[in-house]
């Protein structure tokens, strides 16, 4: 990332990393990678590498955070010092605190919070390598970790971004497109309930473009959801095979 390239999309509609406008980056998902956590997941979304671990429901500490009528979900999004090209201070930055909150709020609708009052579920998200769209990949992994912990859920939550690069609306922006592009729209989505739980926009879009970006992102989410489901089933498939 030295100089801004003249064009992020060439005449044939191919992006800098060789993808078409509506193409996702290659994805790899794995469930149950950490043995000390109640549930865990690992995601490789393009060059993003993210670990998520979930604990609980368990007693809340410190006690003053306990809610008498519902369960509390806590999220910690953290980037490792080596996750970006220039060393990132390990202390939580403004951006990380915000993302933690945003991720927490987009996962909450998927949980039955009222079922286990006075308890807490903790989700820890560790970004090992970042390349744009980490919040979306984090949400996808966090939802898997919670499901793997055995916490009842309404639906899995999937997230994917769309945005505008040069003059085109494209799916799943990577680092360079995110920084040099016109706009970025991350969307988190519950596919079976057809509900959006996170919608942000950074940049400027016309209303028609925004609508196109949202449909594009939700379509991307549906594709990722299939992989998410597959990853979760793979861990428990071993149990099923014995049955036959």
């Amino acid at each position, binding site marked *: 990332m030295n100089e801004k390239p003249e064009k992020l999309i060439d005449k044939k509609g191919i992006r800098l990393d060789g993808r078409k406008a509506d193409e996702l980056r290659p994805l790899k998902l794995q469930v149950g990678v950490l043995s000390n956590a109640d549930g865990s997941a690992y995601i490789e979304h393009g060059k993003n590498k993210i670990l998520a671990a979930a604990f609980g429901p368990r007693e809340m500490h410190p006690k003053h955070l306990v809610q008498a009528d519902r369960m509390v979900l806590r999220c910690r999004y953290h980037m490792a010092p080596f996750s970006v090209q220039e060393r990132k201070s390990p202390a939580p930055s403004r951006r990380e605190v915000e993302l933690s909150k945003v991720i927490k709020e987009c996962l909450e609708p998927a949980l039955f919070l009222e079922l286990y009052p006075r308890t807490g579920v903790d989700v820890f998200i560790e970004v090992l390598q970042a390349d744009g769209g980490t919040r979306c990949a984090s949400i996808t992994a966090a939802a898997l970790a919670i*499901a793997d912990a055995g916490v009842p859920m309404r639906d899995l939550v999937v997230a994917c971004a769309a945005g505008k690069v040069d003059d085109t609306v494209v799916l799943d922006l990577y680092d360079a497109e995110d920084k040099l592009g016109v706009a970025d729209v991350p969307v988190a989505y519950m596919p*079976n309930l057809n509900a959006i739980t996170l919608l942000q926009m950074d940049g400027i879009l016309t209303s028609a473009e925004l609508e196109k970006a949202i449909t594009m992102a939700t379509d991307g989410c549906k594709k990722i959801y299939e992989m998410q489901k597959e990853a979760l089933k793979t861990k428990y498939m071993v149990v099923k095979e014995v049955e036959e």
Partner: protein
Amino acid sequence: MPTFFEKKQLVTPGELLAEGDYLPGENTYVEANKIYASRIGLVDADNKKVNVVALKAFYVPKMGDIVIGTVVEVGFNGWTVDIKAPYTALLRASDVLSRPFKPQNDELSQVLNAGDLIVAKIASYDRAHDPQLTVGEPGLGKITRGQILRVTPTKIPRVIGRKGSMISMIKQETGCQIILGLNGVILVTGKNIEDEELAITAIRKIEQESHTSGLTDRITQLLKEKKGNGNTVEEKTNE
């Protein structure tokens, strides 16, 4: 009123299971007259009731359940007990002493200390209060000998078997006393360590193969084989 699954299919949270005239069973929920799964597990329909047998879950206290817990703290008038649930349980001193508790006469840590294991029954529990335990029944109280093992709480019914067929068979074959805590903790006490180990291998096998049919027969076979081997070894050493 269609259903959208095959028998014993593996489902993930949020998967649509049935629509219309069905009842939501375990690990499912209803939204807009449709039944969805809420945990990863295997679906099964029993008449009109759609159930998901969870493959991963945690223990939720229920009144009357027998559980096995660890004393974590000795308090002023009772103990706090870890029962491997989202809530820690309380055991009152007067319940254990079966007489009025007087702080000046009784030293609680001499009755039960931190780290002690107890078999207890859940006396009361609701949304607003932590579960309360009782040991005032025969068979309950401090554990003095035996071995402890943990399984996923959802697998306990499989260890019990239909009408207790599995557990009574293991007890009979190994000569061990087995107490199943519904929170997934199991206590095995036998005459010697070999018997206990045998019972533990059997329970571990049940945990691993909990979804297969004809398991009781295979466990019986396993126990008989192992017991045969054990005896021959013993005979050799005796000679």
